[in-house]
């Protein structure tokens, strides 16, 4: 750290720090500078929040979205948003959810593999702060130009080529994800949502979910676009900061609607129980291989307000 106090302020500081042992105390404050990745992650988070507009976005969701979408530019691991892990009694996976997710593992395994150079994601988001918006993004397998998306696996964030190197054996793969059921669920669904994971990998992800406690099968539903699907839910305790030093604890129900014919995720909603906090919705309109990007390579979400 550089010395910045000067003149009378510096003198004042020196005077206040004139006591026995002060030098040792000051030296005890020496810390290494942050890893470049840590600062880059903070910059990415702010840049993303700036792009999202000036209205406040729920902190947890914002962090999640920001880090997942633009962690690209951060080298190394990005800390995962903090979730409260202590408040929920251990639940076991409902047998029916397990069976459904196992079925989806079979469906995913039979989906066609792709060696396309690009991956297209078109998603509609809706929340009380930003309203309805649609983002279309192309990611390049080569990762050469523009933004490279990464997906969280444990403490790591992996690029598309790195996803292809993940083990597709359920046990070996599960060992890479967090042990905590809620964090595991959250990371796995992020990968299932919009990643270019191949059929074997998607299948293994569904099998891990089938063994993850706390997931409930809701059953047949329609998503907000009227597409039929099957919903599963995870309820968990989370915290949200409403202002400096003010935390609100709430229960959130994360619902995922899965297309039973393809194993693709259609929609995700967060419902918050007992608090007047914003709920949000992510609807994946199109996720899949593309031969070439429509106009330009993903250089950030090309958004339009709906």
């Amino acid at each position, binding site marked *: 750290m550089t010395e910045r106090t000067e003149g009378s*302020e510096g003198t004042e500081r020196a005077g206040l720090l004139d006591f026995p042992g002060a030098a040792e105390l000051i030296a005890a404050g020496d810390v290494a500078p942050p890893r470049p990745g840590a600062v880059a992650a903070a910059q990415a988070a702010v840049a993303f929040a700036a792009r999202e507009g000036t209205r406040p976005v729920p902190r947890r969701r914002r962090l999640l979205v920001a880090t997942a979408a633009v962690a690209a530019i951060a080298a190394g691991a990005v800390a995962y948003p903090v979730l409260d892990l202590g408040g929920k009694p251990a639940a076991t996976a409902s047998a029916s959810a397990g069976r459904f997710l196992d079925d989806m593992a079979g469906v995913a395994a039979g989906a066609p593999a792709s060696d396309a150079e690009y991956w297209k994601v078109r998603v509609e988001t809706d929340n009380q702060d930003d309203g309805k918006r649609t983002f279309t993004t192309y990611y390049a397998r080569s990762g050469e130009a523009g933004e490279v998306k990464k997906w969280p696996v444990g403490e790591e964030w992996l690029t598309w080529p790195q996803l292809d190197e993940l083990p597709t054996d359920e046990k070996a793969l599960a060992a890479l994800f967090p042990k905590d059921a809620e964090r595991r669920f959250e990371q796995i669904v992020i990968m299932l949502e919009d990643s270019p994971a191949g059929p074997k990998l998607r299948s293994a992800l569904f099998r891990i979910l089938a063994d993850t406690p706390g997931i409930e099968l809701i059953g047949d539903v329609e998503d907000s676009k009227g597409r039929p699907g099957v919903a599963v839910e995870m309820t968990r305790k989370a915290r949200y900061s409403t202002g400096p*030093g003010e935390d609100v604890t709430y229960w959130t129900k994360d619902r995922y609607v899965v297309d039973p014919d393809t194993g693709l995720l259609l929609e995700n909603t967060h419902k918050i129980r007992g608090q007047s906090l914003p709920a949000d919705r992510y609807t994946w309109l199109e996720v899949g291989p593309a031969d070439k990007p429509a106009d330009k390579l993903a250089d950030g979400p090309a958004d339009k307000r709906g």
Partner: protein
Amino acid sequence: MTPDERDGTPDERDGPGTGGAATDEELLARAGRDASAFEPLVRRHSDALHGYFARRAPGAADDLLAEAWLQAYSTRHGFDAARGPVRAWLFGVARNVLSAHWRRTERQRPGRLGDGRDDPWEAVDARLDAAAVAPRLCALLTELPEVERELLLLVAWEQLTPGEAAAVVGIPAGTARSRLHRARNRLRADAPLKLTGDLA
């Protein structure tokens, strides 16, 4: 925001070096309507804020840094220059983020349930221990009222002026000064007799 504004840093748009030349206060004022003006602040102050977290919550510093910047960004309209410089305001945000983190993780820390404290003194204490700060000084610091201790560490470690430290903690500058002097006097009072030096 127009697509134009989304692309490029303020440095690129306003000519090289603008972000570097503008004061924190100018940047923050501009960030009210031009979000990209906020980014130079992140570059400028991340090292200091990360240090603040690394000293007080070493395991969570990276995460808290991102959280503090998001918090600062979303509350940037609440900055009031009358209460102190941007730098002090940012440390105030960091302090709140740390305090929230501390309470959030309380149940994970054994033996501290319900003692009602929300300052990360334990981490600091461990740091002093590891740095071989004299046990006598550690004990004296532990006995200081929380606010005095915090002011002192902000001055010693974050190199804030007493006025800035006051703004961080949210008390008037004059009060902070008198508390800091009181803290220093306590740290001196129990010192072994100095045979040389001033008698003031």
